[in-house]
């Protein structure tokens, strides 16, 4: 065979075959074969690469998991911190709203001078209705000063130390406030009770009282300034067997939710006890 095809002829044939294949390829006759080959190559490459990456992941995953866990903890801590900040900011917004309302109230009542205070506690005994506020004699608070909110009357200062004061609420059962019914001008005495309810007493039977009458301080007795709103009459009891008629009053202030109050520091309560005559022996 070697002798029948000299080396030159073999070379020429090979060159012609290669040139023919190149010409066919350039002419696009090998497109499908090329595509198949390319797909096969890329598929193989992809498979190989994915397996390699899978093995690499498997080998390095413990380290990544640890770092991810660490990162997760950090992010959870960050989320908790941000949630705390949101709650604090919401609380501040609420406090700002309340303080803003108190400032508005003070502006609309310029005749009085106010000192704002936070409620920091309540009386330990459930029989008494007192609150403890965070201003005291250092801020000019004196015993007997009236305490209000933007809604209405709260009570009066009962005891004072340098940095705090105790306030007797009008719902305390030992509290008595002289009041005035706005619509009729009727004078009466408002007393607290064990359960925190307010009752009007000392009203003669012939006085007409209606539900929804607005109750204001009268200023009589000198304990409170006049015309501070207290609440509304919700129920009238007029039994002939009783000496006076009575009425229940719904206070306008929600005493269970009072957080900030205003102490009227320019009001001097009047002690009228020396003027009250005592029966002789």
């Amino acid at each position: 065979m070697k002798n029948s095809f000299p080396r030159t002829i073999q070379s020429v044939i090979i060159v012609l075959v290669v040139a023919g294949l190149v010409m066919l390829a350039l002419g696009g006759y090998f497109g499908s074969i090329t595509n198949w080959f390319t797909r096969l190559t890329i598929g193989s490459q992809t498979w190989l690469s994915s397996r390699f990456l899978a093995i690499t992941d498997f080998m390095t995953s413990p380290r990544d998991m640890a770092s991810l866990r660490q990162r997760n903890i950090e992010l959870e801590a960050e989320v908790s911190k941000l949630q705390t900040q949101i709650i604090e900011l919401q609380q501040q917004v609420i406090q700002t709203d309340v303080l803003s309302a108190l400032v508005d109230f003070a502006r609309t009542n310029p005749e009085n001078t106010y000192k704002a205070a936070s409620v920091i506690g309540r009386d330990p005994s459930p029989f008494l209705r007192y609150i403890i506020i965070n201003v005291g004699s250092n801020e000019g608070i004196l015993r007997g000063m009236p305490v209000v909110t933007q809604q209405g009357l709260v009570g009066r200062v009962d005891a004072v130390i340098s940095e705090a004061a105790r306030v007797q609420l009008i719902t305390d059962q030992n509290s008595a406030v002289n009041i005035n019914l706005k619509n009729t001008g009727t004078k009466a005495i408002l007393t607290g009770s064990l359960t925190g309810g307010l009752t009007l007493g000392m009203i003669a039977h012939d006085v007409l009282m209606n539900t929804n009458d607005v109750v204001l301080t009268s200023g009589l007795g000198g304990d409170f300034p006049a015309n501070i709103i207290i609440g509304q009459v919700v129920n009238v009891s007029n039994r002939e067997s009783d000496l006076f008629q009575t009425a229940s009053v719904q206070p306008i202030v929600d005493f269970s939710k009072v957080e900030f109050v205003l102490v009227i520091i320019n009001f001097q309560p009047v002690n009228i006890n020396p003027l009250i005559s005592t029966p002789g022996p």
Partner: protein
Amino acid sequence: MAILLAIPVLGFATMIQTAILSRITLLSGSADLVLVILTVWALQEKVKTAWHWAVAGGLLVGWISGLPMFIPLAGYLLVVVAARLLQRRVWQAPLLAAFIVVVVGTLISHGLVMAYLVITGTQIQFENAISLVTLPSLLLNMLLVIPTNYLVRDLARLVYRTEIKE
């Protein structure tokens, strides 16, 4: 040390009492943490300072409260009396004894307050006072007994073990 410890422990308890527990009411009743602590403290076998703690608690609460100082003082001393009497009889079941003393102590302290209010001229409807104030307070006090019992018991063990070592 056990006597001095009364001031921070009862001071902190009074702060919790006025700032938190007095706002958590059931009907018109609220828990008395100082009373519960004094009860559990007085029932601990090795404790010898229950009287001092009662005086400290009474003075602290009397100073803050609108009540005259002798009312909580007398109430807490009577609670310690009840605890000491019961401790000698049911010493093997301190939790049961704590519940009994808290019931008795709450009734005694509320009875004293009601008596004082009546004497000073306040009109009290006893039915309302018992059903709306005393019984709800009793329930809240009993709820406090279990956690307080474990905390105070551990405190007593810590204090008296330290004192024995000294």
